[in-house]
């Protein structure tokens, strides 16, 4: 009688996947450049010694933070401002993105480009524009309306809660959402919408029950990014909020750090609180999107624009009005500011001058700062894109065991307030030996810009990848294409609009950001944003406007190049 032998499974052939190697290397790199600074911030919250003094470990920093007189009101203000801004901007951005990407609106591409340019405008320059328009005493709109109605003072006051909300919304909180959502809507397969209409669904029902749910990962990511950005928002709150004692978390942290005797421990403790809120939001978002499929681009992809019918021209008029508010007005006022003899004063003998441009160009730092800005912007965009694309691919497409950890770590830079993060980055580049040779060079600024842009870049590319069906890559491999050929000729092309958007955002953010680079810049690597800050600190708003306008031109130049490449790329699909 034959005996039975229990079959044993063949030893599994261990194969080292490239994604595992890349994932591990990225995790190590991010561990050093992201986790380490965050750990430093945590440690700082327990070190109550004065700056430069031997460590003194204590809970006193946390006690000071929690007993801050303004803590409760700042927390409430921060949450209120965040919620109100998202409630206003999110539905509006979704609606506009849908109109731009999925309908036959005339001039849709140009309007989309207009939103990009609106995003490029430096926030401080736009804030100054709205001060000029809506200051309660001297604002031009108030003066005009007061003159017409014969009253002493106009109705608008930019130094108020709603003034703050308005300026926040029009300086980027809204336009960036349109930028990020439009490519996602463009990737939406029309067959889903057609199926809805076939069974009798109207346009609104189709949008709410088909389109939005399918695009939920991207919408949630954009919402989350908006909330995180709002939690950390500082410049506008500092300029407009402090005068009427509207304090938020970021201005509280600023006051602790900017004092002549800085209190880093309580400032770090407050930053940890923001970080914990951020981590909670991230966890929620990951949970909501982890178990569903959101594929919209498949082998049968079709993009059929929806006809707007009689709504075409009214919607165009509305969007043109929005463009007037978010783009045309700030640009005109910023340009006007560059020619003003005294910013905001038009009732003097000679209100206009070319001297500001001359003064800016004659500044011995100008050319070097411009060169540094171009290096910084292009370098950050190139390195950032490659890094974010790799991280997003590993998280979405690979079987790397620690891909969720990689995803979480990529969010971290966004959870820490800018001022505290810049202190931590200073410690990073001085404290980690292999990175120290970079200190004082433009590479420091490039790496910082790449790290701070990582959450947004990775999440947008992740959203784009989630929309792409796996069968497209499989078809390529079946046809004999290698991983690199598939990645280059299928994925990158389909992700083109998202890649361009992310690259552009990194480019612009690197060109105009001052908060992250303030502690890392030197005279040698100083970009234009620091030069602008220096002029503002001296009260030379007119020359600062010139610098702001040049930064905008650099950004628009980058956008034109990217847009041209994007049009060619989109046509090829």
């Amino acid at each position: 009688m034959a005996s039975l032998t229990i079959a044993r499974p063949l030893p599994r052939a261990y194969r080292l996947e490239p994604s595992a190697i890349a994932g591990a290397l990225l995790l190590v790199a991010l561990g050093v450049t992201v986790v380490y600074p965050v750990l430093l911030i945590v440690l700082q919250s327990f070190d109550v010694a004065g700056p430069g003094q031997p460590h003194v470990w204590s809970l006193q920093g946390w006690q000071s933070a929690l007993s801050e007189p303004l803590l409760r009101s700042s927390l409430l203000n921060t949450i209120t401002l965040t919620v109100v801004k998202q409630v206003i901007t999110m539905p509006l951005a979704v609606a506009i993105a849908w109109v731009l990407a999925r309908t036959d609106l005339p001039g849709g591409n140009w309007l989309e480009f207009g939103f990009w340019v609106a995003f490029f405008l430096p926030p401080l320059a736009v804030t100054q524009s709205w001060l000029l328009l809506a200051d309660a005493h001297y604002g031009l709109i108030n003066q005009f309306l007061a003159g017409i109605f014969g009253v002493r003072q106009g109705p608008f006051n930019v130094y108020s809660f709603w003034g703050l909300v308005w300026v926040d919304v029009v300086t980027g909180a809204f336009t960036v959402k349109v930028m990020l959502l439009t490519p996602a809507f463009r990737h939406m397969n029309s067959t889903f919408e057609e199926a809805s209409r076939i069974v009798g669904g109207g346009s609104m029902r189709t949008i709410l029950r088909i389109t939005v749910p399918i695009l939920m990962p991207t919408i949630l990511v954009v919402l989350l990014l908006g909330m995180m950005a709002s939690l950390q928002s500082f410049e506008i709150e500092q300029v407009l909020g402090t005068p009427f004692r509207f304090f938020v978390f970021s201005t509280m942290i600023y006051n602790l750090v900017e004092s002549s005797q800085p209190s880093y421990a309580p400032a770090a403790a407050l930053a940890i609180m923001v970080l914990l809120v951020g981590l909670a939001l991230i966890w929620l978002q990951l949970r909501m999107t982890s178990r569903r499929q959101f594929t919209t681009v498949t082998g049968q992809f079709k993009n059929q624009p929806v006809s707007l019918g009689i709504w075409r021209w009214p919607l165009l008029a509305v969007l043109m009005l929005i463009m007037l508010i978010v783009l045309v007005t700030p640009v005109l006022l910023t340009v006007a500011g560059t020619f003003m003899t005294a910013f905001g004063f038009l009732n003097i003998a000679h209100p206009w001058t070319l001297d500001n441009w001359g003064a800016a160009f004659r500044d011995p730092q100008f050319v070097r700062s411009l060169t540094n800005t171009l290096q910084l912007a292009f370098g950050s965009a190139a390195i950032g894109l490659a890094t974010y694309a790799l991280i997003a691919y590993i998280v979405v497409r690979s079987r790397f065991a620690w891909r969720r950890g990689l995803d979480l770590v990529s969010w971290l830079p966004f959870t820490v307030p800018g001022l505290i993060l810049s202190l931590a980055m200073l410690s990073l580049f001085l404290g980690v030996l292999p990175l120290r040779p970079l200190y004082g060079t433009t590479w420091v600024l490039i790496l910082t810009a790449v790290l701070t842009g990582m959450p947004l870049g990775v999440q947008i590319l992740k959203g784009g990848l989630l929309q792409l069906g796996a069968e497209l890559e499989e078809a390529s491999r079946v046809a004999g294409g290698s991983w690199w050929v598939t990645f280059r000729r299928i994925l990158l092309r389909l992700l083109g609009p998202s890649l361009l958007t992310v690259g552009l955002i990194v480019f612009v953010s690197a060109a105009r950001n001052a908060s992250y680079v303030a502690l890392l810049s030197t005279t040698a690597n100083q970009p234009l944003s620091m030069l602008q800050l220096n002029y503002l600190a001296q009260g030379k708003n007119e020359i600062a406007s010139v610098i702001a306008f040049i930064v905008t031109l650099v950004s628009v130049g980058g956008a034109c190049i990217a847009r041209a490449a994007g049009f060619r790329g989109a046509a090829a699909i």
Partner: protein
Amino acid sequence: MSKAQFRIGRRRLLVLSGAAALLQACSAPAPRAMPTQTTAPAQASSSGPGDWDKILSAAKSEGAITVNTFPGSANQTALAEFSKAYPDIKLEQTTLVSSALAPKILQERQANIFTWDVLHQPTTTSLQVLKPAGVLDPIKPAIVRPDVTDDASWRDGFAAGLALTTDMQLAYQSTLVRAQNLMIDTAQVGPDDFKSAQDLLNPKWKGKIVCTDTRISGSTFFPFTLARLKYGDDWMTQFFQTQEPVIINDGAQIAQLLAHGNYPVAIGAIWTVLQDFQKQGIATTIKQLNLPDIDSAGPSTNGTLWLVNNAPHPNAARVYINWFLSKEGQEAWTSITTDNSRRTDVTPKDDSTFVPRGLSLPDLNEEKYLPEIARTQELAKQLIK
């Protein structure tokens, strides 16, 4: 036992290797104890020309110097005169405000990087942060030129410039300006409305005073410290809780608002911004006011020199310091920045901030006032809500 059980998964090996690499990369040297502030050396005997020649020769060999001032194109233009006087010594000028300079200089020093030689810094951060961390060396031994140490060249004598610190060694005050803290719009404020700091508590001005943040800005915590010393903490309590001042951190922004007529009274506006406006025919009704009970004088923002410990170019630093404090240096500096030098052979450039001879005013920059300033800042933290 099968071969599979002895095989370490390559994925696991990669992760372990990565963790090991991470630990290695993160191993920075243990923080060194900051060099403690050295005791002041014995006063150097006056140097002869030969000594100065040696210092100059050594400075030229060093070939460079790094100096920090506050931002300002005038500061950069003024210090370019040093490069003309000493073309063999390349001047690298950074323009960091105190809150940016302090963390940078401290963190760099912890990493054994020494960038700066000389600082032009206000006293508060220098004494509260840099001095305890051992960043500063006594400057007095570095001042060796006879034309600089000559008592006749300085208002109240050479030694008066060392009085900012109790050891009379650490810093040198080259300029003397009257505080320009309080400004009024004479179109909205009567000539007799303000005679003392108590008038700032008049309910008539409730909600109409704009000031910089007392927790941060010297242009406010200096006069408020004087008010508190004269009238008690209640003065500040009343000011913040009853008068509801508008707080704006940016002195330039305050100057703009004042010029637009938004507020009749301002504390902490940048006077030079208003002066620029007045040259354009704007803000001509804005005047500076010196209330006798909160009037003070001291160095201008960039008027105090500090020598950095472990300066990378020590001899170039001495050449720079002696040049800056010389007649040529002070003339170059004040002509472009419109500061008022303490030197008696350099004419004052700004009458509005000139301290008349014989007028003795407290200088809140002096080290002895630090505890009171800290108390003012702490009280402001409690009161600003």
